[in-house]
């Protein structure tokens, strides 16, 4: 009991700290590393939530492939830190205001009495094998079969799109 509370606090702290790092670091490569930190701690939270398959997938796909692609592009373009860091005057003020509104709204929803009654209560125990590859496969290939197939088409289109964009000659 104490262990999982401690782990939650640790991962949550790392996630929030690293997310702040993503948006406030000047050097894009440092931002990317901070994002890797967020991804890994979210993966840790997935394990706390009995989603071990998704946790492994998160590290493998997100941290291991997508972020390496990011780093690859960053190193290839060799971007300098932006100067100035943030957008100009009015847009910045509006952005922060909008973010505060979004945050209040989200908290309002999460902490509203109806939702809280359901979410503060005791966490039910899950059936054996919850979140395991077998359980995910059973649902994915029966109930969600068509969306799954459409996702594969989406990925194919993305591959073709990336190749077309990369092959084009620019004057």
């Amino acid at each position: 009991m104490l262990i999982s509370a401690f782990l939650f606090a640790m991962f949550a702290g790392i996630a929030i700290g690293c997310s702040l790092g993503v948006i406030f670091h000047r050097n894009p490569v440092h931002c990317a590393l901070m994002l890797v930190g967020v991804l890994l701690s979210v993966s840790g939270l997935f394990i706390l939530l009995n989603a071990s398959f998704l946790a492994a997938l998160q590290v493998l796909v997100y941290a291991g492939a997508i972020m390496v692609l990011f780093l690859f592009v960053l190193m290839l373009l060799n971007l300098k830190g932006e100067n100035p860091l943030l957008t100009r005057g009015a847009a910045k003020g509006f952005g922060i205001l909008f973010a505060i509104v979004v945050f209040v709204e989200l908290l309002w929803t999460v902490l509203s009495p109806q939702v809280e009654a359901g979410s503060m209560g005791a966490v039910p125990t899950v059936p054996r094998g919850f979140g395991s590859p077998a359980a995910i496969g059973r649902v994915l290939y029966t109930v969600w079969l068509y969306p799954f197939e459409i996702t594969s088409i989406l990925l194919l289109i993305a591959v073709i799109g990336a190749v077309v964009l990369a092959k084009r000659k620019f004057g």
Partner: protein
Amino acid sequence: MDTAFLIESVIKVHIVLGFVLLVVPFIVWMERKVLGHMQDRIGPERVGPFGLLQTIADGIKLFMKEDLVPAQADKAVFILAPGITVVTALIATTVIPWGDTVTLFGRTIPLHIADVNVALLFVLATTSMGVYGVVLGGWASNSKYPLLGGLRSSAQMISYELAQGISLVSVVLLAGTLSLAQIARQQAHMWYVVPQFFGFAIYVISGIAETNRAPFDLPEAETELVAGFHTEYSSMKWAFYFLGEYANMMVVSGVAITVFLGGWNGPVLPGPVWFLIKLTAFLFFFIWLRATFPRLRYDQLMAFGWKVLLPASILNLVVTAIVVAL
């Protein structure tokens, strides 16, 4: 989560990680000795019996060297990068089973640190994190050759990871589980290398590419890149890269043995002994390859990965799936 379980886990972690770290000098010694004999030389022989202590002496020398950080380097990332390489490799060793269960003091103790139900994915995930060590080391040095080495390795490792993962998936199809201990247990009578020979070949080739070993050691190619990503590294930071490379070799061999070569299974001798015999043979194979093959050219390497290895692994997967379905 009782106390006995905790103590048991801590002891096992110490044994496995200690073993991996302590055995690395002897693998290096073996590599130099075997390479020497294959090239008609003697290899190290002055320090200790048969030159056994040569690597220890080298380690002490590295420890004493000045620890340089280039003035233009990104200091934090430069220091972090070698650590990532070692840590990811060591984490991956925690799920590799080196024996079945033993009964000690009335407790049944499985001979692996953690039996996660997604162990195979776990290994793939941690090794995919290992790319960061090389890429960041190359980038943080802020110098031409390391950057080229880092870029090359990120492209190479991402490309070969695909073929590696897909070749393992075909075994998962046969075994019906992602747990490494379960997969090893199922091979008591027939090793998966028999029905999955192509998968095994693809896994070994991409595994060598993943560890950046010859003939795929493009990221550190001495002749063209001046040692590639670790040009600017010296002293213990360099030693960490070296350690990481050998620990990675052990992980790749360990997974190959567990998934394809029957794990700890073998007649007469106890499980861990068989595992060690197979591990030694596999490491010898790594060294043998290094002595035999010349380094590939970069475009050959990428073409081979994408146009030969990946289609071959997908074909293997499809055929396996059809056979399993029938």
